[in-house]
């Protein structure tokens, strides 16, 4: 009787674990890319992109300068189906540079671009615990 109880308990526990794993909520904010009316929008979190099961998606932004007179920022994203979005700005505002300097693993990035010129028309950085 005791043996039966122990085995039953083990099976129940294992079943619950597997069930919980299978039912785990999907990662928040995977990379999304949407294009319409001459604009593209891309968004997603570092955490979701990095830990996605497809190993295709990514998102990020970078800053570069020639250390003399010019600087530019660029943002890029690829979703799980392989679609990409990329934009740049060669005249970023100080606010843009400061926002990008604060990007970290909790960051949610959203950017919008003009598909004709390739220029970033909006960059949003959001950091919050629920992004993890």
């Amino acid at each position, binding site marked *: 009787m005791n043996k039966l109880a122990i085995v039953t308990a083990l099976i129940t526990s294992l079943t619950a674990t597997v069930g919980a794993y299978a039912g785990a909520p999907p990662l928040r904010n995977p990379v999304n890319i949407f294009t319409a009316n001459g604009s*593209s929008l891309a968004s997603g979190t570092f955490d979701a992109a990095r830990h996605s099961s497809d190993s295709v998606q*990514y998102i*990020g932004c*970078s800053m*570069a300068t*020639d250390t003399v*007179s*010019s600087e*530019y920022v*660029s943002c*890029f994203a*690829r979703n799980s189906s392989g679609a*990409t*979005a*990329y*934009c*740049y700005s*060669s005249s970023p505002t100080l606010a843009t540079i400061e926002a990008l300097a604060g990007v970290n693993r909790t960051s949610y990035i959203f950017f919008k*671009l003009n*598909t*004709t*010129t*390739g*220029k970033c028309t909006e960059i949003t950085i959001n950091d919050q615990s629920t992004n993890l």
Partner: protein
Amino acid sequence: MTRILVPCILSLTVGVAAGWKLHPAAAAPIDSKLTPEHVLFGGHSTPVNSGNIDMSAMRAMIHEELRSALADSSRDVPSPKPAPKQATPEQLAQQRNAVETIDGLVAGGVWGEEQRRTFREKLVALDPEQREHALQQLTTGINSGTIRVTVDGSPL
């Protein structure tokens, strides 16, 4: 007493005479013929008679005054920014080479690690206008799908 009095009277006489001579009223008689035109143009203008003003001379003088005033004011305008430093022949050759290389990379239609590295290297040789054009070429190519990105992360 007389020794003191004589020099005093002499010096008083000399002082009064000098003062009278230097008095403005005595220095020069007022020119009763002085007209406003003489005052306005410093007395060097064509003689003016109050009933018949020489308009062409006046016009010429006004033009001259305006011209000199404009010349003065133009000297006050801050000089424009100095022109950007002229590129040397070597730099121009490097820029031409960089533009050609980047055009080739973009026309290739595939953006991998090698293209990314070469693009970065060539980008620094370009002037700001050329750099802007190169970035635009790459960006619009990726977004339109004419360039297939095979590298993970930033294409730059």
